[in-house]
């Protein structure tokens, strides 16, 4: 698929950036589970934290194809950095832009656009929170096990059910310094160690109606709207992980000599490389097509779901194969493929698991 000149320029710029700036520290960040703050700061200087925010609010108003290419390139080197960027754009800034009051937009979006604040998102399927109403206010008790960008300074978006029924969701914006909010457990996931995922606990945390994004019980609509964009972003990250792992495995297979032969000469290795690169190419076509549909204001939801489903599961398969090509070395933390493998697992289940997303695709396809 031909990209236009603008996209190619962006792609080249990010490729260089990832190699020159991100690559050096990626292992250290993963090992120490440190939030990739410096990378994000540099990306914000490039305007990429305001990718979905319009220019009049200080954003870059990047088109979807530009955003997915950005995430793909970063993920080839550090998927955590890409996930922070994607969360901030698609799961934080975008719902505010689309459904927030003018007041909330004015308060948060200009700061979000420059990266002054980095926003987070609490996964809607891992809420274990009880809500009590007290007058106008809502009192939250419990925990969310999977808050993206929890280490960042900005607020987070959380979707809760006031009625207890799953379909009646309400989106809320929560400042992290609200009394009763505590980050309890970092480093609680298999991968994406530098993305600042953590469990957040709520202890008599009081929220007022001004925290609501959109209206009460509008959450399901908001969720559907943001999931489309989020799925494109996650597909892009999955694709980048797959490409990064395949590039590494290919390089290794050319260098590794066994039986007096570079192992790339062996049929079972070649077959893996062929499978891996075919899946990457297919995933890329699905993703770019879906992104371009969104940019053309066409219905892109089925395409986005397919792209996420395909590239998410492919990333798990491809990174598994990448470790296998490395053999024993692939199992060691000295080599990058085990990190790609762990990161792929996270992407594959975020914003709809394969089981859920197949149901979404079936539903769209049938209607």
């Amino acid at each position, binding site marked *: 698929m031909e990209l236009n000149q603008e996209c190619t320029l962006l792609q080249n710029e990010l490729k260089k950036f990832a190699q020159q700036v991100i690559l050096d520290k990626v292992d250290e960040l993963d090992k120490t589970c440190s939030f990739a703050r410096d990378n994000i700061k540099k990306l914000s200087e490039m305007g990429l934290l305001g990718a979905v925010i319009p220019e009049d609010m200080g954003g870059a108003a990047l088109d979807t194809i530009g955003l997915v290419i950005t995430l793909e390139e970063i993920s080839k080197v550090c998927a955590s950095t890409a996930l922070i960027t994607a969360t901030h754009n698609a799961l934080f800034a975008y719902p505010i832009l689309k459904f927030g009051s003018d007041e909330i937009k004015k308060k948060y979006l200009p700061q979000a656009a420059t990266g002054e604040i980095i926003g987070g998102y609490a996964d809607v399927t891992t809420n274990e929170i009880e809500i009590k109403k007290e007058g106008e206010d809502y009192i939250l008790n419990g925990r969310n096990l999977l808050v993206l960008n929890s280490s960042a300074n900005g607020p987070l978006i959380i979707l809760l059910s006031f009625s207890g029924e799953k379909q009646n969701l309400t989106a809320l914006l929560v400042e992290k310094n609200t009394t009763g909010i505590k980050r309890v457990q970092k480093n609680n996931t298999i991968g994406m160690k530098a993305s600042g995922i953590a469990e957040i606990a709520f202890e008599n945390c009081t929220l007022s109606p001004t925290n609501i994004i959109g209206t009460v019980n509008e959450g399901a609509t908001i969720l559907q709207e943001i999931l489309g964009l989020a799925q494109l972003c996650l597909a892009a990250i999955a694709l980048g992980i797959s490409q990064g792992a395949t590039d590494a495995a290919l390089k290794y297979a050319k260098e590794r000599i*066994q039986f007096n032969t570079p192992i790339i000469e062996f049929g079972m290795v070649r077959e893996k490389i062929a499978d891996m690169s075919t899946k990457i190419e297919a995933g890329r076509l699905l993703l770019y097509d879906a992104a371009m549909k969104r940019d053309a204001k066409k219905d892109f939801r089925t395409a986005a779901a397919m792209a996420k489903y395909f590239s998410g599961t492919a990333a798990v398969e491809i990174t598994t194969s990448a470790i296998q090509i490395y053999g024993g070395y692939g*199992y060691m933390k000295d080599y990058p493929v085990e990190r790609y493998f762990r990161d792929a697992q996270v992407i594959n289940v975020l914003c709809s698991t394969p*089981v859920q997303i197949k149901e979404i695709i079936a539903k769209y396809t049938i209607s």
Partner: protein
Amino acid sequence: MDYFLTDEEKTLKEKARQITEKLVLPVRDKLDEKAEFPTEIVKEMGRQGLLKIFVPREYGGSGAKVMDMCIACEEVARICAGVATAYAANALGSGPIIYFADEDQKKKYLPRIATGELFCAFGLTEAQAGSDVANIQTTARKEGDSHILNGVKQFISSGSIADVYVVLASTDKSRGARGISAFIVEKGMPGFSFGKEENKLGIRASTTTELVFEDCRVPKENLMGKEGRGFLYTMRNFDHSRPGVGAIALGIAQGAYEAALDFAYKNKLLENQCIQKKIADLAIEIEAARALIYAVARMIDSGAKNFSKESSFAKVFPSDVAMRVTTYAIELLGPYGILKEYNVEKMLRDAKITQIYEGTNEIQRAVIALELIREMGMKSRQGKEQ
């Protein structure tokens, strides 16, 4: 499924499960996180008689049956494959002594291995000799009544933990695989030290280190079996051990399957036909893996002469099943699946090694195919002769 285990086998299975649930389950997160070798647990396994199952009766063991080993490995790995690897590495190291050592060597080591007093490891792999086993560079030079070992062994399970190491070294480079010999090296011998300790994706309770030999003098009584037979011993040892690796994979699969089924049931996901199909598939695959492992173990224990191919079957299929089951378990649990709290992410990390260690599944398949080609060649020759 009922495999009509003997009473002894049932007792062993029950005992292995009890010990593991009591001792390993409460600490498995800590062992994984801190990459801590379960020394005390393995000692207790010795006291409870789990170490003597891989040692022959005449040396204080309880029979050295592959079937017993498979039963124990599955049970331990169902809770923690790291501990199962720590456990099985001992058997892998003892194997060559059991099958090929001189009477004196057997008497010297095996009774103490059976009680857990001595711990064993197998030193084969090197940086340039992974799948290409015969390419080992470690040398053993004859000097008077001794051999002088030089070289570095890599990725050795229980390296630095074990007391006794069966080490493969080349006594005659010009003879290639036929110039490789096996030595019994004890911890503390001058010139024998430990190098890098690996930081691994999974089986983190099992310690993996380099063995370093710098002019390490090994007395002639520590040459194991016959000179030049080391490669053969190695292959034969792996033929015996591969079903155990399959059983570790099976245990991981079983553990992940139970966790997934439990989660699906509690969260009412089993009403979804897509999930029903997958869970049914996994149940079938796990049972097929178990049936295959048991059949191969019974075949070996019944005195089969050649079981190299079948032993590979019993490693390749279960380890692929373990990856499919654990990968799916994460998908099914969704965002919960990637959380350490729910344990399946550890099972996935652990499962990956079973496709790699003791010969990658690619090498196994290549060896199986070679055997099939050989069989076809024999058939075709027989056809011509008739």
